[in-house]
């Protein structure tokens, strides 16, 4: 069982985001593993373990040859990584990103399953998994909150607005997993040391055979503005009677 996991490396979400003058997201600083992808990494390690053979390959697209987030996932137990770093990809849209990642899957060879998160923390388009599947000509099982492999098929519980569906497809396939699908492990000290020497295959779009045309964006940001702020109202310390304020407030709105 060979599993490829998409791993996005993002600016620390605890630090407020900023835009460049061309309206793209600032990504200069150190990037970290998107927590959303730690679930895919853990799931992949467990599936390979259960299958009793194979390996986990990480794929990532990030600027400036960034590997910090990849090292975290390698320390969890992934075997190797492919990293696409190319100035031509600055401000890439989701379709372009999917094209790049699909090429990485082809480069990894012999892949049975691709795992992604349902959406990234900083981009959250949530379209990349199905876009990759369409590019690869594979089925996609999206929004999985449970994943089981049986023989050559993957069966998932797919999140829906009202509950969940059980959906099945044959492999190879792309599966996107929700947060909480498994409990990600913490890298051990041994894992962290081992990760330092694990192979990271650094490539450009040209290495992947993607033309400049294939990755050209066709959208333009025309305006960025601050949203009208929402004013805070009254704030009080509870002295044991604050509940009365709430009753009064609800009463004033005529909802009780």
């Amino acid at each position, binding site marked *: 069982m060979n599993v490829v996991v998409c791993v996005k490396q993002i600016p620390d979400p605890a630090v407020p985001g900023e835009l460049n003058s061309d309206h793209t997201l600032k990504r200069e600083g150190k990037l970290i593993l998107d927590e959303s992808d730690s679930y895919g990494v853990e799931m992949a390690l467990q599936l390979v373990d259960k299958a009793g053979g194979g390996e986990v390959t990480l794929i990532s697209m990030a600027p400036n040859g960034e590997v910090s987030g990849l090292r975290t996932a390698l320390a969890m137990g992934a075997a190797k990584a492919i990293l696409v770093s190319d100035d031509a990809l600055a401000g890439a849209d989701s379709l372009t990103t999917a094209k790049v990642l699909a090429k990485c899957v082809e480069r990894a060879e012999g892949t049975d399953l691709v795992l992604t998160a349902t959406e990234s923390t900083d981009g959250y*388009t949530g379209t990349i998994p199905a876009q990759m599947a369409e590019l690869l*000509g594979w089925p996609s099982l999206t929004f999985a909150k449970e994943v089981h492999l049986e023989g050559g098929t993957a*069966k998932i519980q797919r999140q829906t607005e009202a509950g969940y569906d059980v959906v099945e497809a044959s492999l190879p396939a792309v599966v996107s997993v929700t947060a909480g699908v498994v409990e990600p492990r913490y890298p051990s000290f041994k894992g962290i040391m081992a990760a330092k020497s694990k192979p990271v295959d650094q490539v450009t779009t040209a290495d992947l055979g993607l033309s400049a045309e294939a990755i050209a964006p066709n959208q333009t940001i025309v305006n960025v503005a601050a949203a009208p702020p929402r004013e805070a109202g*009254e704030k009080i310390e509870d002295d044991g009677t*604050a509940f009365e304020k709430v009753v009064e407030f609800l009463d004033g709105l005529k909802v009780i």
Partner: protein
Amino acid sequence: MKIWVYAESEGDAPTTATLELVTKARELGTVEAIYVGDNAAAVAPALGAHGVAKVFAVDAGGSLAGVMGAAAMAGLVEAEAPDLILFAQSYDGRDALARLSVKLDRTVLTNGVGLSVEGDSITVRSAIFGGNTLVDTKFEGAKPALAAIRPKSFVAEAGGEAAAEVVNVDTPDAGRAAEAKVLETHVEEREGPKLEEATIVVSGGRGIGAAENYEPLVEELAKLIGGASGASRAIVDAGWVPYSKQVGQTGKTVKPKVYVALGISGATQHMVGMKGSDNIIAINKDGEAPIFSVADLGIVGDVHKVVPKLIEALKARK
């Protein structure tokens, strides 16, 4: 301008998110819908009443709806020439949008909260950084433009022609993608109003302390004031309540008349899903919690002390 809406249904009715898109589209041009499923005859009247002239009905043949919808649209786009295709930022909506974007080799704009058309240029507004910053993005290149819009961005209102004409479309060939088959459907039980449609929403966060406190604090209060109960992602991930209750970026967007946040810190990803509420009440023991920056009434206090008293007082009024 001809606009297509990827229509979804729940039971026999179009989803509210679908009707919101149709209502907005009607303002901007003529509207047609693509509907995947076996309820076309049942959903067509409501779609028509909101302004859809024609419904292309696709039989998914047991495969994932979005996948089959994308294949069907790809087959129709050339002959029908829509300028813009709108999707709800939903599960099937994103599947359909993503697959179609590859088939047509078009960029997509997602998480839209607004939409404008000038001549034949189409601009989508989206909110980033937890809704603090609004970004307007214009499509370049060939039509149709593809966009996903967050629920509750527009208000659904009837006002169209009578019934929509239903045109049946053959099950398209989606290749290996069609191998993803839906075997079972599970619907979680719900009491009281739907979260997205309730006039009052009471949500609980990690501050309620434990799973067993959700019922006596959050659900009880919601029930007393005729509201729906919601949650932050922290307690959904912890397994205290089902995902269907999650409010926020990766959960539901709600815009009730009153939103009550109990023990919720107010992370940007949570606020994005409830900031549009008319009135916000927050109870949190940390006076510095970000939720207070949007609260019309903020109570710095312990939910275990304030909420039981509140429940008693409300019961006493009845």
